[in-house]
């Protein structure tokens, strides 16, 4: 389907969802990189309503044939719906559609945040002069996500409950299964990490929180004034230990050249202090260490899965090949060094 084909079909869909609107026109349909798990399109809709012509820039996220992360679009949509009224900067979700007759695959439509950009997660200086101001907001918002009551904001709908002492195992089982199913060749470092994680389970978190699941450099939009305007890519959100997000945000892959400044923003100590203040929670070093190893393993699972998608021809998006080559090597290296140190410590 070309962009020209998409526009009239989106117009027909909006006419169905907006009976009060007439003369709906769709322009500027353009595919953008917006997370490798969904096809993301930027577009502008205009229509007549109440005697006036209205215009609204929109984002449409459509399920792919195959993706980097296999997730349900309603989980992501529901996260936007839960957090939008709380003041957390997320786009306003507008429509969720599972009927294939409109665009062949399920999709959702949300507000487009204009005039913003996202930093590259592989740049040692992704935010330049804005690093400090963005870093403080980045960790503040993550603290607010951890502090949110999932039930009160409606995040827990269709999520299923999880006990504090069970969340580590559920996540580990999930990502081990991905490696079992998708590895193209045996992965000694990943397997060693899985064994270490099972031998050293973390203490349970004091409470179950919303976990974004991919909170990191590159997954938020900011304006030229240095204000974070949108936290994106909630495909992997779930309920669990809030330290899972802290460890993922601080994973060495993001802005890899600066491990002392997670994600290329502010110093690790300051970042964690902000998160503790805003979440009302504390970072237990033992638990944190477990989630750090887990997240590097989860990264490996995602990159291994991406490699399989590309190799089998299920999805030939170049970002999958890149993730498989570059990110797999980084996480293998990070895990090998850390686990070798742990083994050395254990033998002393």
């Amino acid at each position, binding site marked *: 389907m070309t962009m020209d084909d998409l526009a009239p079909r989106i117009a027909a869909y909006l006419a169905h969802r907006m009976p009060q609107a007439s003369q709906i026109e769709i322009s500027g349909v*353009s595919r953008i990189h917006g997370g490798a798990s969904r096809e993301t399109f930027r577009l502008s809709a205009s229509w007549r309503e109440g005697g006036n012509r209205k215009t609204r820039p929109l984002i449409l996220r459509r399920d792919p044939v195959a993706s980097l992360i296999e997730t349900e679009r309603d989980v992501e949509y529901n996260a936007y719906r839960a957090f939008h009224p709380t003041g957390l900067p997320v786009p306003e979700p507008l429509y969720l559609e599972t009927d294939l007759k409109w665009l062949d695959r399920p999709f959702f439509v949300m507000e487009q945040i204009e005039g913003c950009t996202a930093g590259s997660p592989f740049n040692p200086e992704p935010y330049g002069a804005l690093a400090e101001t963005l870093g403080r907001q980045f960790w503040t918002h993550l603290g607010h996500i951890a502090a949110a009551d999932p039930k009160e904001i409606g995040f827990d709908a269709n999520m299923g409950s999880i006990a504090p002492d069970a969340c580590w195992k559920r996540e580990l089982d999930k990502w081990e299964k991905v490696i079992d199913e998708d590895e193209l060749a045996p992965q000694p470092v990943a397997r*060693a990490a899985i064994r270490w994680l099972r031998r050293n389970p973390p203490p349970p978190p004091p409470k179950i929180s919303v976990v974004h699941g991919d909170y990191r450099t590159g997954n938020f939009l900011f304006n030229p004034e240095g204000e974070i305007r949108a936290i994106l890519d909630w495909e992997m959100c779930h309920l669990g230990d809030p330290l899972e997000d802290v460890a993922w945000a601080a994973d060495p892959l993001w802005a890899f050249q600066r491990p002392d400044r997670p994600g290329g923003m502010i110093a690790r100590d300051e970042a964690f202090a902000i998160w503790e203040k805003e979440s009302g929670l504390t970072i237990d070093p033992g638990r944190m260490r477990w989630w750090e190893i887990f997240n590097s393993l989860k990264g490996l699972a995602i990159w291994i899965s991406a490699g399989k998608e590309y190799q089998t021809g299920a999805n030939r998006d*170049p970002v999958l090949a890149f993730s498989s080559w*570059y990110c797999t090597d980084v996480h293998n*290296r990070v895990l*090998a060094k850390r686990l070798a140190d742990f083994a050395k410590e254990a033998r002393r």
Partner: protein
Amino acid sequence: MKPDVDLVMQGFFGTLLMDVAPHLNAEYSMGNVGIMAMMMFMTAEEHDRAADIRVAENTEMRALFAEAAKLIEDAALSAMLADAAASRDASLRVKALDAANAVLNGLLVELQTYVETSKAAWAGPLDARIWDYLVAATERRKLTFPSLG
């Protein structure tokens, strides 16, 4: 004489980023070209060293297995280790080396799993030797990320 493959790949990296990408109108296409350019840069590095890295890994794993085969009490595992230690790379084609590498890595997973649960005196030093190998191997495979500044 023909230009070297790594030189060509690095040249294409520059051409794609500087000459092609700026003339594209579609943001998604521009992003894809950027990623492909970066991967050409990485291909330049990988092309030259791919066989060397795999031969080194396979050789080191076989040496490790030869040593482990003498220590492991499990007769079946010990025999598999001895067989793998005696195997050789029949071809220097990267796909053939990768196939052998996958077999050896599978056996390394088995060996390390066994060693981690062993209480024998040799288990600690052998585990340390496996980790030394894994750290060196992952470091050797490090891909250089191009400086885009």
